[in-house]
């Protein structure tokens, strides 16, 4: 599997770098706190531990544990799966994703009036930050929302373990890999 082209297109936008840079106030540390970073898998292929930790928080916001069905992004190591797919992507795409994540971390709370880091917010406040991106008047922010949502949802709902909760019984034939 590869990351969705819709996400790739967003991550390759040059303006995204500017947004990510603007979101980084001078003197602030990049990425999540040490505790989050320490949870990063040792064998990441594309993301650095800080970016993985941010993606993990974002994925958990898009697809939290519990609710209508129990399974959430963290139950299937979604950030780690996405990291594996990113290994085949260009450096530019990876940098773009990192810029988008940085913007979410530092900029998205500001969009809904909070001066805080995304990863430090509670679940409801994180959801409000993401929702603010979705409803923003600024096209780039809506694109960040769409790119991250597509990335998380395409990956999550292609996982067999998710299907029983939705009543989807999966392919009728035996499974094997094909190269695309």
């Amino acid at each position: 599997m590869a990351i969705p082209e819709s996400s790739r297109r967003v991550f390759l936008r040059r303006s995204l770098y500017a947004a990510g840079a603007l979101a980084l106030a001078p003197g602030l540390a990049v990425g999540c706190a040490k505790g989050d970073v320490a949870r990063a898998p040792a064998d990441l292929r594309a993301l650095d531990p800080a970016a993985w930790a941010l993606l993990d928080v974002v994925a958990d916001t898009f697809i939290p544990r519990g609710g209508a069905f129990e399974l959430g992004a963290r139950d299937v190591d979604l950030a780690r799966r996405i990291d594996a797919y990113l290994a085949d992507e260009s450096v530019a795409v990876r940098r773009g994703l990192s810029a988008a994540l940085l913007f979410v971390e530092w900029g998205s709370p500001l969009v809904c009036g909070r001066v805080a880091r995304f990863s430090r917010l509670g679940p409801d406040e994180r959801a409000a930050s993401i929702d603010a991106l979705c409803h923003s008047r600024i096209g780039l922010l809506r694109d960040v929302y769409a790119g991250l949502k597509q990335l998380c949802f395409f990956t999550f709902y292609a996982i067999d373990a998710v299907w029983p909760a939705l009543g989807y019984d999966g392919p009728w034939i035996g499974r094997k890999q094909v190269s695309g």
Partner: protein
Amino acid sequence: MIVEGGELRAPVALRTHTLVVGSGAGGAVVAHGLAMAGVETVVVEEGGYFRASDMTQRDDQMLPALYRERGQQQSSDGMITVLQGSCFGGSTLINTADCEPTPEPVYEHWRRRYGLDLDARELADAQARVFEMLGVRPIDASQVNRNNAVVLEGARKLGWKAGTFQNNRSNCIGSGYCLIGCAYDAKKGVNLNYLPRAVEAGAAIYTDVRIERLVAGEGGGFRATGSVVARGPRTARLPFEVQAERVVLAAGAVHSAAILDASGFARERPALARNVSLQPQMSVAAWMPEEVVAWRGIPQSAFCSEFDDHTPERGLGGFRFEAISGGLSQVAAGLRGFGRVHKETMVHARETALALLLVPDEPSGTMRFTRGERGFAARIEYRMTDEWVARLRRGLRAAAQAFFAAGARSVRFGSEVFEPLGGEGDLDRALAFPIRTGVTHFVSAHVQGSCRMGPDPNTSVVDLDHQVHGVPGLYVVDASIFPSSASTHTMIPVMTFADRAVRRMLARGV
């Protein structure tokens, strides 16, 4: 002979009479016609060769394998996902198998507005031959699944015209994975008829080969250059070159134009890569009170044609909605929201009925191309007109009305910001449906028009014989030649024109 790129270990240099670039609806018919007439023919296809046994029925594997840009080719603003097959058999491998000819008012529109001197008998004969080869037949009522039946029920309760398609399936077992390749060879794409018969007649087909540039020889003929590509990333592996007397571009409405552009043919042909029609479609999802299980059975067998408005003045017009289903991950990504709200929607997946609202458009888009290590990438610029948006909104209202008539509890559209409609009293909200980049999702399965057919080199790219104006021996035979949208489904129109084109080539004695 079918040669897969992976079998090649050294640069390839071929000489043939006719090179056909692309193995989809257009290229397959042309290759078959030429090979059957004894013309030495080589077909090259950028995508891979996949057999029924390769189809895994998984989106995450088959979308990247079978579709152009992994199924995520988009307009430049990101709002419209432009779907094209990119494999042996092209879009005929991954389409819904609906066989919808070009309506007569569209032909008349092309005659009047674009000066196409089209002979009705010639087209009818061509279409009849295509239907026979594909085994086109009506979809039996027993094959209409609940998802499609909902559309029929809703339309009929409102007294609206509705019906079921003709299709090119036989012995379909209803697994529901038509859009990611039939694992049972029940869908009779050109991979199962025109192409193998062309091979039997002597044609050679090379898959995993990308043609990037054509150079016309001073004494006639062409040198086509490109690469054998790695399946998957499509990066160049080996040089590939063909010397041919004739070249037929059938690479689809994006890539035929890209090859002409890269070969320098745009300079004297101002219509190249312009007049593009995307015929965008929007998803309509209804939460029904009973199980629908949209993903099983033929995905698209029913339509509501009450609002078709095809006229000689306008061509294809109005709007229609057609039931559809798709892969779970695609559906999930297209449904509004995130978090627990989205999970609540997804847990009702078995009770969700799906349709696509199709709104024919004016051919007003443009394309620009860049060439990278993975081949051509198109920047597709597309602007929706106010008239089109108004028609879209009326169509969304009508589709929702049909779903409510069939008992829907709520109806949502392809938007992240539009609240679902809760009932018939809510329908007029559809008339203010917002369109915003990033949060409004359309899909196009019928990109057409970048190499328009016409008599005037200033306003068209190919003549009525499909030959590029001013370039003897260079032809374009795919959806790019249509002056405006040919039909609500384009496989049959492309194949009909391809049959007509190859007969005209042969009639010229070449």
